[in-house]
Protein backbone atom coordinates (compact mmCIF):
# COMPACT_ATOMS: atom_id res chain seq x y z
CA UNK A 1 0.00 0.00 0.00
CA UNK A 2 1.87 3.01 -1.25
CA UNK A 3 1.28 6.35 0.44
CA UNK A 4 0.61 9.16 -2.05
CA UNK A 5 2.87 12.17 -1.51
CA UNK A 6 1.69 15.53 -2.80
CA UNK A 7 3.90 18.54 -3.35
CA UNK A 8 2.18 21.75 -2.36
CA UNK A 9 4.47 24.74 -2.72
CA UNK A 10 7.30 24.29 -0.27
CA UNK A 11 5.56 21.47 1.54
CA UNK A 12 5.16 17.77 1.07
CA UNK A 13 1.94 16.13 2.15
CA UNK A 14 1.81 12.42 2.84
CA UNK A 15 -1.74 11.31 3.35
CA UNK A 16 -1.98 7.78 4.62
CA UNK A 17 -5.07 6.18 3.07
CA UNK A 18 -5.36 2.90 4.96
CA UNK A 19 -3.63 0.50 7.31
CA UNK A 20 0.09 0.22 6.57
CA UNK A 21 2.45 -2.68 7.03
CA UNK A 22 5.80 -2.13 8.73
CA UNK A 23 7.47 -2.27 5.30
CA UNK A 24 5.08 0.41 3.98
CA UNK A 25 6.00 2.66 6.89
CA UNK A 26 9.71 2.23 6.27
CA UNK A 27 9.19 2.98 2.60
CA UNK A 28 7.24 6.11 3.48
CA UNK A 29 10.15 7.20 5.66
CA UNK A 30 12.73 6.68 2.94
CA UNK A 31 10.69 8.33 0.20
CA UNK A 32 9.86 11.36 2.34
CA UNK A 33 13.44 11.91 3.36
CA UNK A 34 14.55 11.62 -0.24
CA UNK A 35 11.78 13.94 -1.53
CA UNK A 36 12.61 16.64 0.99
CA UNK A 37 16.02 16.90 -0.67
CA UNK A 38 14.78 16.55 -4.23
CA UNK A 39 12.04 19.19 -3.92
CA UNK A 40 13.92 21.35 -1.40
CA UNK A 41 10.82 21.19 0.81
CA UNK A 42 10.57 23.27 3.97
CA UNK A 43 7.88 21.28 5.68
CA UNK A 44 6.23 17.88 5.66
CA UNK A 45 2.73 16.98 6.82
CA UNK A 46 1.99 13.34 7.55
CA UNK A 47 -1.74 12.82 7.83
CA UNK A 48 -2.47 9.69 9.87
CA UNK A 49 -6.26 10.14 10.06
CA UNK A 50 -6.83 6.87 8.17
CA UNK A 51 -4.19 4.86 10.02
CA UNK A 52 -5.92 2.04 11.94
CA UNK A 53 -3.47 1.73 14.82
CA UNK A 54 -0.39 3.50 16.11
CA UNK A 55 1.51 0.71 17.73
CA UNK A 56 5.11 0.85 18.90
CA UNK A 57 6.49 0.30 15.40
CA UNK A 58 4.40 3.03 13.77
CA UNK A 59 5.15 5.48 16.56
CA UNK A 60 8.85 4.83 16.36
CA UNK A 61 8.87 5.16 12.59
CA UNK A 62 6.97 8.46 12.67
CA UNK A 63 9.40 9.77 15.26
CA UNK A 64 12.31 8.66 13.07
CA UNK A 65 10.74 10.37 10.06
CA UNK A 66 10.45 13.64 11.98
CA UNK A 67 14.02 13.42 13.24
CA UNK A 68 15.52 12.52 9.87
CA UNK A 69 13.63 15.27 8.09
CA UNK A 70 14.75 17.73 10.74
CA UNK A 71 18.36 16.75 10.04
CA UNK A 72 17.68 17.56 6.39
CA UNK A 73 16.58 21.04 7.45
CA UNK A 74 12.80 20.74 7.22
CA UNK A 75 9.93 20.51 9.70
CA UNK A 76 7.47 17.65 10.12
CA UNK A 77 3.96 17.82 11.55
CA UNK A 78 1.89 14.75 12.28
CA UNK A 79 -1.82 15.47 11.94
CA UNK A 80 -5.05 13.55 12.43
CA UNK A 81 -4.34 11.33 15.44
CA UNK A 82 -7.85 10.24 16.43
CA UNK A 83 -9.02 10.19 20.09
CA UNK A 84 -9.13 6.36 20.27
CA UNK A 85 -5.67 6.14 18.75
CA UNK A 86 -4.31 8.72 21.21
CA UNK A 87 -5.87 6.69 24.01
CA UNK A 88 -4.26 3.42 22.94
CA UNK A 89 -0.89 5.13 22.47
CA UNK A 90 -0.97 6.56 25.98
CA UNK A 91 -2.07 3.22 27.43
CA UNK A 92 0.82 1.51 25.66
CA UNK A 93 3.21 4.12 27.02
CA UNK A 94 3.89 5.65 23.62
CA UNK A 95 4.37 9.37 23.33
CA UNK A 96 5.53 11.41 20.38
CA UNK A 97 7.79 13.68 22.33
CA UNK A 98 9.82 16.16 20.30
CA UNK A 99 7.48 15.62 17.38
CA UNK A 100 5.01 18.34 16.46
CA UNK A 101 1.40 17.15 16.31
CA UNK A 102 -1.66 19.10 15.20
CA UNK A 103 -5.37 18.35 15.08
CA UNK A 104 -5.79 18.15 11.32
CA UNK A 105 -4.46 19.19 7.95
CA UNK A 106 -5.50 22.86 8.29
CA UNK A 107 -3.81 23.19 11.65
CA UNK A 108 -0.74 21.48 10.25
CA UNK A 109 -0.48 23.94 7.38
CA UNK A 110 -1.08 26.83 9.78
CA UNK A 111 1.77 25.57 11.94
CA UNK A 112 4.18 25.29 9.02
CA UNK A 113 3.16 28.74 7.73
CA UNK A 114 3.74 30.20 11.18
CA UNK A 115 7.27 28.80 11.19
CA UNK A 116 8.38 30.71 8.14
CA UNK A 117 8.31 34.44 7.64
CA UNK A 118 4.99 36.04 6.76
CA UNK A 119 6.48 36.73 3.31
CA UNK A 120 6.13 33.27 1.80
CA UNK A 121 2.48 32.27 1.98
CA UNK A 122 1.05 29.03 0.73
CA UNK A 123 0.55 29.28 -3.03
CA UNK A 124 -2.90 29.06 -4.52
CA UNK A 125 -1.80 26.52 -7.09
CA UNK A 126 -3.18 23.00 -6.88
CA UNK A 127 -1.03 20.38 -5.18
CA UNK A 128 0.98 18.22 -7.56
CA UNK A 129 1.24 14.51 -7.03
CA UNK A 130 4.88 13.44 -6.88
CA UNK A 131 4.43 9.68 -6.76
Amino acid at each position, binding site marked *: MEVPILKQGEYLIASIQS*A*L*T*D*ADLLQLRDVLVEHVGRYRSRGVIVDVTAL*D*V*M*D*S*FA*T*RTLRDIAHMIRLRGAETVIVGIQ*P*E*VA*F*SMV*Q*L*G*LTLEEVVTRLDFEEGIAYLNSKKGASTKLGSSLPRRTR
Partner: protein
Amino acid sequence: MSAKDLGISVLGADARVQIRSDSDIVVARQKGRAMATASSFAPAEATLIATAISELARNIVLYAKTGEVILKIVDNGNRHGIKIIAADEGPGIADLDRAMQLGYSTSGSLGLGLPGVKRLMDEFEIVSAPGKGTRVTVLKWRT
Protein backbone atom coordinates in the same frame (compact mmCIF):
# COMPACT_ATOMS: atom_id res chain seq x y z
CA MET B 1 -6.07 -22.50 33.03
CA SER B 2 -8.52 -23.21 30.21
CA ALA B 3 -11.53 -21.11 29.33
CA LYS B 4 -13.69 -23.83 30.83
CA ASP B 5 -12.07 -23.54 34.25
CA LEU B 6 -12.98 -19.86 34.31
CA GLY B 7 -16.63 -20.53 33.49
CA ILE B 8 -16.17 -18.81 30.19
CA SER B 9 -17.86 -20.11 27.06
CA VAL B 10 -16.76 -19.41 23.54
CA LEU B 11 -19.31 -17.76 21.23
CA GLY B 12 -19.13 -18.37 17.51
CA ALA B 13 -16.19 -19.57 15.51
CA ASP B 14 -12.58 -18.80 16.31
CA ALA B 15 -10.58 -16.83 13.85
CA ARG B 16 -7.07 -18.06 13.17
CA VAL B 17 -4.52 -15.97 11.38
CA GLN B 18 -1.20 -17.50 10.39
CA ILE B 19 1.62 -15.03 11.01
CA ARG B 20 4.49 -15.27 8.55
CA SER B 21 5.24 -11.69 7.51
CA ASP B 22 4.46 -8.10 8.35
CA SER B 23 1.35 -8.07 6.17
CA ASP B 24 -0.12 -10.84 8.36
CA ILE B 25 0.21 -8.45 11.32
CA VAL B 26 -2.21 -6.12 9.56
CA VAL B 27 -4.56 -8.98 8.65
CA ALA B 28 -4.65 -10.17 12.28
CA ARG B 29 -5.33 -6.78 13.80
CA GLN B 30 -8.00 -5.95 11.24
CA LYS B 31 -9.71 -9.28 11.89
CA GLY B 32 -9.57 -8.55 15.64
CA ARG B 33 -11.07 -5.10 15.17
CA ALA B 34 -13.83 -6.51 12.97
CA MET B 35 -14.71 -9.18 15.54
CA ALA B 36 -14.68 -6.64 18.38
CA THR B 37 -16.86 -4.23 16.44
CA ALA B 38 -19.27 -7.02 15.50
CA SER B 39 -19.54 -7.84 19.23
CA SER B 40 -20.42 -4.21 20.03
CA PHE B 41 -17.14 -3.19 21.60
CA ALA B 42 -16.82 0.61 21.66
CA PRO B 43 -14.50 2.11 19.00
CA ALA B 44 -11.85 2.98 21.60
CA GLU B 45 -11.86 -0.60 22.89
CA ALA B 46 -11.71 -2.02 19.36
CA THR B 47 -8.65 0.16 18.73
CA LEU B 48 -7.00 -1.08 21.95
CA ILE B 49 -7.66 -4.66 20.85
CA ALA B 50 -6.26 -4.09 17.35
CA THR B 51 -3.19 -2.41 18.85
CA ALA B 52 -2.53 -5.28 21.27
CA ILE B 53 -2.84 -7.81 18.42
CA SER B 54 -0.43 -5.76 16.35
CA GLU B 55 2.19 -5.81 19.13
CA LEU B 56 1.84 -9.54 19.79
CA ALA B 57 1.86 -10.50 16.12
CA ARG B 58 4.93 -8.34 15.49
CA ASN B 59 6.77 -10.14 18.30
CA ILE B 60 6.06 -13.41 16.48
CA VAL B 61 7.50 -12.06 13.22
CA LEU B 62 10.48 -10.48 14.98
CA TYR B 63 11.47 -13.23 17.36
CA ALA B 64 9.88 -16.49 16.17
CA LYS B 65 9.48 -15.79 12.42
CA THR B 66 6.19 -17.72 12.24
CA GLY B 67 3.26 -18.51 14.49
CA GLU B 68 -0.42 -17.81 14.77
CA VAL B 69 -2.94 -15.48 16.34
CA ILE B 70 -6.21 -17.00 17.50
CA LEU B 71 -9.19 -14.78 18.28
CA LYS B 72 -12.30 -15.84 20.17
CA ILE B 73 -15.35 -14.02 21.41
CA VAL B 74 -16.06 -15.34 24.91
CA ASP B 75 -18.79 -14.91 27.49
CA ASN B 76 -18.59 -15.39 31.25
CA GLY B 77 -22.31 -15.33 31.94
CA ASN B 78 -22.68 -11.61 32.42
CA ARG B 79 -20.40 -10.09 29.83
CA HIS B 80 -18.68 -10.50 26.50
CA GLY B 81 -15.00 -10.42 25.95
CA ILE B 82 -12.43 -11.08 23.29
CA LYS B 83 -9.62 -13.50 23.88
CA ILE B 84 -6.42 -13.26 21.89
CA ILE B 85 -3.85 -16.03 21.81
CA ALA B 86 -0.51 -15.36 20.12
CA ALA B 87 1.42 -18.61 19.88
CA ASP B 88 4.68 -19.59 18.28
CA GLU B 89 7.28 -22.33 18.42
CA GLY B 90 10.18 -19.91 18.30
CA PRO B 91 13.15 -19.55 20.64
CA GLY B 92 11.04 -18.78 23.73
CA ILE B 93 11.97 -16.33 26.48
CA ALA B 94 14.48 -17.32 29.14
CA ASP B 95 13.81 -14.55 31.64
CA LEU B 96 10.11 -13.70 31.60
CA ASP B 97 10.33 -11.13 34.41
CA ARG B 98 12.86 -9.23 32.42
CA ALA B 99 10.88 -9.46 29.17
CA MET B 100 7.90 -7.91 31.00
CA GLN B 101 9.96 -4.95 32.15
CA LEU B 102 9.30 -1.58 30.59
CA GLY B 103 12.00 -0.73 28.07
CA TYR B 104 13.62 -4.17 27.99
CA SER B 105 14.24 -5.33 24.44
CA THR B 106 16.65 -7.79 22.85
CA SER B 107 16.09 -6.27 19.42
CA GLY B 108 16.84 -2.63 20.15
CA SER B 109 13.20 -1.66 19.74
CA LEU B 110 11.19 0.16 22.36
CA GLY B 111 10.55 -2.75 24.73
CA LEU B 112 7.07 -1.40 25.45
CA GLY B 113 5.20 -4.20 23.71
CA LEU B 114 4.61 -6.81 26.40
CA PRO B 115 4.15 -4.47 29.40
CA GLY B 116 2.04 -2.19 27.23
CA VAL B 117 -0.23 -5.01 26.05
CA LYS B 118 -0.66 -6.06 29.66
CA ARG B 119 -1.80 -2.55 30.52
CA LEU B 120 -4.21 -2.44 27.56
CA MET B 121 -5.92 -5.72 28.43
CA ASP B 122 -7.90 -6.97 31.43
CA GLU B 123 -6.18 -10.34 31.71
CA PHE B 124 -2.72 -11.32 30.60
CA GLU B 125 -0.86 -14.61 30.70
CA ILE B 126 2.44 -15.56 29.14
CA VAL B 127 3.89 -19.05 28.97
CA SER B 128 7.31 -19.47 27.46
CA ALA B 129 10.32 -21.71 27.72
CA PRO B 130 13.63 -21.57 25.83
CA GLY B 131 13.42 -23.75 22.75
CA LYS B 132 9.72 -24.43 23.30
CA GLY B 133 8.12 -21.27 22.01
CA THR B 134 5.91 -18.61 23.49
CA ARG B 135 2.18 -18.34 24.08
CA VAL B 136 0.61 -15.07 25.18
CA THR B 137 -3.07 -15.14 26.11
CA VAL B 138 -4.92 -11.92 26.77
CA LEU B 139 -8.52 -11.04 27.38
CA LYS B 140 -10.42 -7.80 27.12
CA TRP B 141 -13.94 -7.49 28.52
CA ARG B 142 -16.49 -5.27 26.87
CA THR B 143 -17.40 -2.40 29.19
